[in-house]
């Protein structure tokens, strides 16, 4: 057991030496506090990475909800005075097709309109006597502003029993809800980042506490303050990147697995619900980038806190 420990210590020192191009690092790399710090950084980076990715996911999903509702409008043609409604439907559809920014127009047939009511009224009823309105679904072109005001005016002039519904109320409600969700997600991300910064800062200072002797010795053998600060900063930066890579990598892996899982569940009721809420868990490059940025942020923070601690310690020595 003792022999194994000594062999492990020799191997660790050889690895450290190799990593430093032959010279042993002045700050011991494989200390217990160093391992604990890497673990704290990895966990906090993972949580912050998940939050950043989730915020990104929610933002893009809410944008999808809005755009899918906002790119569709409906024209409702009501039967009036017992005369046939088909000519009015055809005229309204024609006006819609002629409007700028419209991609496609689809008028529901009488049978299709009746089928829409079946969930509420049941099947087997005679709809002939009912004044069932007919629907025309108009899809708008992406990225273009359709002349809805012109269409509304044309309809009121030429097809007086037609009503244009541009879902504005729904879009506004969805927009408000989506913005609220994004703001909440950003607030949670900010809180997690602050918690990460504090946890990493305190863990770094804790790990530094065991190194005061080394700082003092380096100071008394003639090392400049900048040299000592650089040694510690590069050591802790390395620990930061190690922990950041572990935590960030785990967060990225989580999103990849989550995406694969939702893809596998597609067409099941649960899978459809998740997809309706979060899309296909496709994070996109911006999402993955945010995870990487969080990992780099924690690594840089670790290096900077260690530098600050060294400077403070040196001020107490001399």
């Amino acid at each position, binding site marked *: 057991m003792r022999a194994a420990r000594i062999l492990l210590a020799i191997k660790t*020192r050889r690895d450290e030496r190799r990593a430093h191009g*032959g*010279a*042993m690092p*002045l700050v*011991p790399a494989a200390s217990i506090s160093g391992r604990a710090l890497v673990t704290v950084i990895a966990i906090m980076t993972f949580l912050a990475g998940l939050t950043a990715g989730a915020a990104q996911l929610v933002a893009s999903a809410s944008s999808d909800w809005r755009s899918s509702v906002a790119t569709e409008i409906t024209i409702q043609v009501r039967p009036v005075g017992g005369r046939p409604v088909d000519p009015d439907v055809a005229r309204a559809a024609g006006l819609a097709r002629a409007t700028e920014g419209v991609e496609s127009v689809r008028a529901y047939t009488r049978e299709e309109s009746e089928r829409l009511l079946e969930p509420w009224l049941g099947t087997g009823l005679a709809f002939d006597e009912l004044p069932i309105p007919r629907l025309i679904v108009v899809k708008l072109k992406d990225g273009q502003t359709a002349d809805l005001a012109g269409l509304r005016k044309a309809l009121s002039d030429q097809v007086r029993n037609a009503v244009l519904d541009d879902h504005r109320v729904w879009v506004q409600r969805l927009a408000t809800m989506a913005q609220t969700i994004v703001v909440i997600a950003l607030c949670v991300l900010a809180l997690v980042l602050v918690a990460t910064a504090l946890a990493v800062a305190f863990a770094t200072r804790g790990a530094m506490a065991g190194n005061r*002797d*080394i700082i*003092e*010795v*380096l*100071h*008394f*053998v*003639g*090392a*400049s*303050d900048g*040299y000592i600060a650089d040694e510690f900063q590069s050591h802790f930066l390395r620990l930061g990147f190690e922990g950041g890579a572990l935590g960030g990598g785990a967060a990225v892996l989580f999103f990849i697995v989550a995406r694969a899982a939702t893809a596998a569940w597609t067409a099941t009721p649960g899978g459809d619900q998740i997809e309706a809420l979060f899309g296909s868990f496709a994070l996109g490059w911006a999402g993955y980038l945010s995870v990487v940025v969080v990992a780099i942020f924690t690594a840089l923070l670790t290096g900077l806190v260690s530098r600050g601690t060294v400077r403070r310690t040196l001020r107490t*020595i*001399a």
Partner: protein
Amino acid sequence: MVRFENVGLRYGMGPEILRDLSFSIEPRSFQFLTGPSGAGKTTLLRLILLSLRPTRGLIGLFGHDVSRLDKDTLTGLRRRMGVVFQDFRLLDHLTLYENVALPLRVQGKDESSYRAEVTEFLRWVGLGERIHAFPPVLSGGEKQRAAIARALIVKPDLLLADEPTGNLDPSLARRLLRLFMELNRLGTAVVIATHDIALMDQHDDARRLVLGEGRLHIYE
């Protein structure tokens, strides 16, 4: 080389533990700093080493008033001094060779330029066979000699040693004293803090700085 003028030191609002110290250490001189335990020998060495600032008085080091110097200049002055700590202060994760080479390494020197010299120094203090050993497996005497080698490797103008023979048997203590005297002959001023009267008696010619009740008495 070192000049103290009416230097006093107190910690916080406490009483002055060193009072009106006025003395100088000349180049190539050899002196023992002695006094009872708790008299302030280590504190005085720390004042010379610039790790403590006096609460009053003036300290001059290598011709500079230390209160007016910037950090880079202070680092430069520190490099002209070698120090042997009472508790050795070796870095446990470095080998003896790396510990002794530390003062040269932190100056940015290339290892190939000092490898032979460090090895020679370790042989000189009797640690030639333990170059690759780590401090935790060494005896107190071996650690002491490694600490001395580390202090001397930069060939300092001034050597400060705090109880350097405290962990050594009498024969090894005599050998190390001869080493300090040889270094002194080569041009280094030496200050050895000790309360080992037998050690001081072996070098009768040395100046004695005796600390007692916060004041310094000098016997040339």
